């Protein structure tokens, strides 16, 4: 595939994603979720002494997810390269290093064979910098891995790139060896 074809495909994929997503843009109202760890502090505390505005009670909402389904999963077989999910990066870099190529190729092959499988590429950064900016930096890394998968023939519809920024970083890293572990992309399969 030459570059311009690839770009066109990517763009049309993006446009499609935009359209599809735009359809979803009506907000979904979650019912106020069941409150699991309601603390005494959630009792009614009016905020304002004299005006009628904003005297509503503050209610806590709990949002813990469901446990994922269990059972045998080849993707998690420790003897299979597909169980390897972490791609590490140099400081301030989104270049995918050669040492991770066999692992990325294995995942590309799995995704091509299993057309319904979907991966989420989760980008991460170390703690330096601000949270929102690091969220964008982590995204840069997940996009870099996505491009590697794309070049190996994986379709856009099977890949979602997201970022955790510094949120999953080991806090207060004392040295580079620790910080290095935070600069990575994790490959997570949907419904895992």
């Amino acid at each position, binding site marked *: 595939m030459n570059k311009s074809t690839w770009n066109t495909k*990517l763009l049309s*994929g*993006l446009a499609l*994603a*935009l359209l599809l*997503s*735009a359809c*979803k*843009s*009506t*907000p*979904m*109202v*979650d019912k*106020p979720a069941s409150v699991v*760890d309601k603390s005494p*502090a*959630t009792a*009614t*505390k*009016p*905020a*304002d*002494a*004299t*005006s009628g*505005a*904003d005297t*509503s*009670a*503050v*209610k*806590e*909402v*709990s*949002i*813990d*997810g469901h446990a994922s389904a269990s059972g045998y999963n080849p993707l998690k077989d420790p003897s299979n390269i597909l169980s390897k999910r972490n791609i590490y990066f140099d400081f301030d870099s989104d270049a995918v290093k050669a040492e991770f190529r066999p692992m990325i190729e294995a995942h590309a092959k799995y995704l091509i064979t299993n057309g319904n499988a979907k991966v*989420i590429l989760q980008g991460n950064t170390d*703690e*330096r*910098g*601000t*949270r*929102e*900016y690091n*969220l*964008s*930096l982590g*995204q*840069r890394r997940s*996009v870099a891995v996505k491009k590697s998968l794309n070049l190996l023939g994986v379709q856009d519809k099977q*890949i*979602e*790139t*997201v*970022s*955790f920024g510094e*949120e999953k970083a080991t806090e207060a890293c004392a040295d580079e060896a620790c910080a290095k572990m935070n600069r990575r992309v994790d490959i*997570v399969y949907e419904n895992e």
Partner: protein
Amino acid sequence: MNRQIFKHAIRGVVFSASLCISFIANAALEIEISGGSAQQLPVAIVPFAQVATADQENISTIVSADLRRSGLFRVLETGGVVNHPSDIMQIKYAEWAALQAQAMAVGVVETLPDNRLKVTFQLADVLKQTQLTGMQYNIAPNQLRATAHKIADVIYQKLTGEVGIFASRIAYINKSNGRYALRIADADGENPLTMVSSKEPIISPAWSPDGSKLAYVSFEKKKPIIFVQTLSGQRTVLANFKGNNSAPSWAPDGSKLAIVLTYGANSQVYTINADGSGLQQITKSSAIDTEPTWSTDAKWIYFSSDRGGKPQIYKVSSSGGEPQRVTFEGAYNVSPRFSPDGKSLAMIRNDGGKFRVALQNLASGQVQILSEGSQDESPSFAPNSRILLYATRVGGHGALAAVSADGRVKQRLNESGGDIREPAWGPLLN
């Protein structure tokens, strides 16, 4: 005492590190203040006569703490004065003039027939022996603290000519025992309430301009999604598009938000109506464009971008167009925040490896570094533009700190037993 003279005195002050007060109330947030104006106005806040609510903290204690935290007042000890007036007619001015009080507040809390409370307070000019202002509030018994903050705001405004912010609220994220909680508290750190908690990260809380709801980013679904939640607990997904959904920022009129989406590529700035409709792409680059914030007049969206190599702050018309670069000094400027008065832009600058709060005067372009930490982030203006709240690290854990916009008064808010971060100062409520 002349208000004009005092206002002039505030502007003429010289930095002094003489003041260092710390106090702990019953609350989770502990506040420590350092610095302050050298010419603090001496005021006496006489304990209120509040027999019916003797079990609650005296209003004068709360008002005194508020005024101290501003750095602009020297709140005098009143214990040595035998007579504690509760009405301006009972004041023996000579006694208070001897304490060097220039202004003094007196008040009373009475129970009404319907069990509500009547709070009366008066502010007197000790030298002129006249009343400066007086207010009466009929309130529910649990609104005593809130009323004390309102009284502090009235005193602050009367004596400085500027709007007080003591009755406003702050939001922040607490991380403890592996859980993340979005909390709101009074501006003095009291009454912390959890809005939502999760075992996955929550970041970027943003108050709606009317103070009735917060937008924030939650990772509960293995990716960042933007939610809007009312204070009464109604929770709505604002943006859950493919990729990341982050960095919500409300337009000044609350009708829409600027947000950041990625789809399959790098972060870009969009606007979306507050009901989730009307998505519009604002920036179109292959670089990172993130952390949008609206100018006070809503004409511009400021954002950080690495389109020029290193991250700098740019502005773009809020309806889209060609962005213009705003910051040129320093190799790393991110997290722009517009001051409510429209006069300055706060940001985080990497200052020789240390990430600090910087303030740029938009008229002169001059930049002042305001904070002293090495990992400071998330600057947030008080609604009167005089104070910046931000996240810092103290002894290896996250804490909040505040600095006056002139850099003179510094405060630290520490919540024991957890990391606190991502502060957002709420609007003034009428």
